């Protein structure tokens, strides 16, 4: 028995010593094991060129287990120094429980627009606990070969957009719009949140919903639902049963001309599609001068309040805010865009197309996440329902607007 205990002790001791425990090591917790190569081979070496004394270890877990495992680790006090964060409430919860340090005094945070910082700030913006890392943008991907074949040009306005759809439809060989309503999140995220910012004028409308100055029953939201309702005429027959993977396949097999989507598809699509494709920004409403795009904050990184090497970790965080990181990240993880205000060079042409819109258009994030995303039922899931209902033709645009507003009024004071 004694032998057993001592051997157990030895093996435990061995376990601990194999962990890089010497001072100056910064451990990053992340769910992005897809990006492990980019971190280990490009990002960390680039950091070490400047700061050779600080060792950085990228430690990724399985995405589905991340939220649960990171809470457990933080609670048990054995989490890494830096914690990769999903946006808004789930991370705010970690901060509220005192597990994340405030980063108010971190240099370099000016390199981000406020909208990017909102995802990892307290509601009143007085405390920021995460450095914004990457975003995903919405837009429309199109099959260049089909566009050439039918002699179509890229639509800039909504009426041009519907004219293009009409032409593809009358040609009859291709599905104009590759999207379905079986996965309600897909039509809501890639439809409503995609063209929506043009209707509610980006940040103005998003803030308007937060303060209660704008209501979903306002005319521009009803018009937005009407426009989405018109999409159904250009979707594949039986789109009501078409799932998100169905839509992806429809587009990558060259059977559809236009795919309302987001930048995260770039990586897989460039591997699967054997035709040339590119992207265009959400067409503006007729007569509208400014354009607005959705550039949704998706990945951030925060500092463990019980970090073993907080100073070194902060040095790394500050480096993340710089242009060097932005450029490496944008090129190594295509489709995920750094949230910095720096202009950066990206090699992937489609990713570049997405980035170029930020020069001319104002950016915003999905309007259903910040604060209004936490009620019961939250705005996001209500939108899933009503948007798919409108496109299915089972809910009228006015009903949809009323239902969205009613759900907010149920729990959110500014709308009561």
């Amino acid at each position, binding site marked *: 028995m004694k032998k057993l205990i001592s051997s157990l002790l030895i093996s435990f001791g061995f376990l601990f010593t194999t962990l890089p425990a010497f001072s100056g090591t910064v451990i990053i917790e992340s769910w992005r094991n897809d990006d492990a190569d980019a971190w280990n081979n490009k990002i960390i070496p680039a950091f070490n060129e400047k700061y050779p004394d600080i060792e950085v270890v990228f430690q990724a877990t399985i995405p589905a287990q991340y939220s649960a495992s990171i809470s457990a680790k933080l609670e048990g006090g054995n989490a890494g120094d830096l914690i990769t964060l999903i946006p808004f409430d789930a991370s705010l919860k970690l901060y509220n429980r005192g597990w994340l340090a405030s980063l108010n005094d971190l240099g370099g945070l000016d390199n981000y627009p406020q909208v990017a910082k909102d995802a990892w700030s307290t509601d009143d913006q007085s405390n920021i606990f995460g450095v914004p890392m990457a975003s995903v943008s919405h837009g429309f991907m199109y099959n260049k070969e089909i566009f050439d074949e039918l002699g179509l040009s890229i639509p800039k306005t909504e009426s041009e957009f519907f004219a293009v759809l009409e032409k593809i439809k009358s040609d009859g060989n291709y599905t104009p719009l590759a999207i379905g309503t079986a996965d*309600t999140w897909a039509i809501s995220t890639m439809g409503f949140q995609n063209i929506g910012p043009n209707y509610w004028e980006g940040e103005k409308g998003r803030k308007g919903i937060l303060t209660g100055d704008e209501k979903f029953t306002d005319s521009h939201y009803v018009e937005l639902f009407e426009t989405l309702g018109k999409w159904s005429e250009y979707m594949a027959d039986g789109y009501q049963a078409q799932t998100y993977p169905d839509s992806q396949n429809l587009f990558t097999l060259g059977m559809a001309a236009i795919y309302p989507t987001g930048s995260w598809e770039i990586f897989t699509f460039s591997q699967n599609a054997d035709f040339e494709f590119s992207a265009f920004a959400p067409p503006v409403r007729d007569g509208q001068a400014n354009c607005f795009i959705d550039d949704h904050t998706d990945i951030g990184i925060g500092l463990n309040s019980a970090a073993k090497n907080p100073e070194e970790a902060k040095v790394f965080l500050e480096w993340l805010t710089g242009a060097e990181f932005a450029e490496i990240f944008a090129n190594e993880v295509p489709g995920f865009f750094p949230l910095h205000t720096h202009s950066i060079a990206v090699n992937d042409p489609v990713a570049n197309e997405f980035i170029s819109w930020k020069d001319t258009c104002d950016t915003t994030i999905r309007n259903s996440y910040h604060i209004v995303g936490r009620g019961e039922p939250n705005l996001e899931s209500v939108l899933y329902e009503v948007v798919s209902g409108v496109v299915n033709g089972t809910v009228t645009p006015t009903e949809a607007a009323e239902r969205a507003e009613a759900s907010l009024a149920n729990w959110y004071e500014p709308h009561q």
Partner: protein
Amino acid sequence: MKKKFPTHIIVFLFPACFIYSIFMILPLLDTMRVSLYTQNLLGENMDDSSGVRTFIGLRNYYDLFYNENWSWHFWNALKNNFYFFVLHVSVQTPIGLVIAAFLSNKDLKLKNTYRTLIFLPAMMSIVIVGYIFNLMLSNLWGIPQTVLGLFGLESLYQPWLGLKSSALITVSLISIWQFVGIPMMLFYAALLNIPEEILDAAKVDGSTGMNTFWRIKFPLILPTIGLMCILTYVGNFNAFDLIYAIKNIYAGPEFSTDLMGTFFYRTFFGYQHQLGNPTMGATVASTTFAIILIGVIIYLYAFQRRITRYQY
């Protein structure tokens, strides 16, 4: 002589009772207890460790039945669930009975092959069944269009799984297709149990074919049919996996395929960006339990106690 206290009975009962109490009764009671609390989902400040539960009595139940945000989903799920059950009983049970009646025919060739084939889907993983049917009924890669096209009926094709009006029927029929083997097996076993003498006596009295089935065999297997109905009831109100595999937890379109199981899952575990609400989930679970309990009690008192059992 004084009778000795039967210690051995307690000893023998203990393991089963103990395990059942620990893993079934206690969690059940605790679920009911938790359903009387509310929980702060998002810790508001540093001192507030989120997860603190406050006692609120029957408030959750009131919300579930009367607060429109909950009640709509609850009544919708309950209605769908009854529909799901009625379809199972009125379609699956008769089909199972007919197949069992055919199989119990002594002159049938390849009896075992049929039995195995019909029972086979019930042994398949629901995920596979869901996936296959999703593909088969797909508007893009599915087969109904082609099959209907052979008869010039292509225009009859609809995306059945995607329409509010037909999604629940379609899902129910898929479930019926998969599990029709179970009532078949039970009825088949019951039919085989009927002693030859009774059937011979019927023959001597001049009864044949359908008459024998309805007058002799059917009354004899009636208890099994009742049992099958209550098993279907319990199974249907606990159903979750098929909807999850085919329509995901959103039970679309517009919750038209939502059952108590999927409603519970969404409430308890949360879903995309909606934090789970464990106490409300406990309320839904307790309510489902009550519904099943009521159904079983009705069956036991109204049906099983009155039924005539024939000894043979």
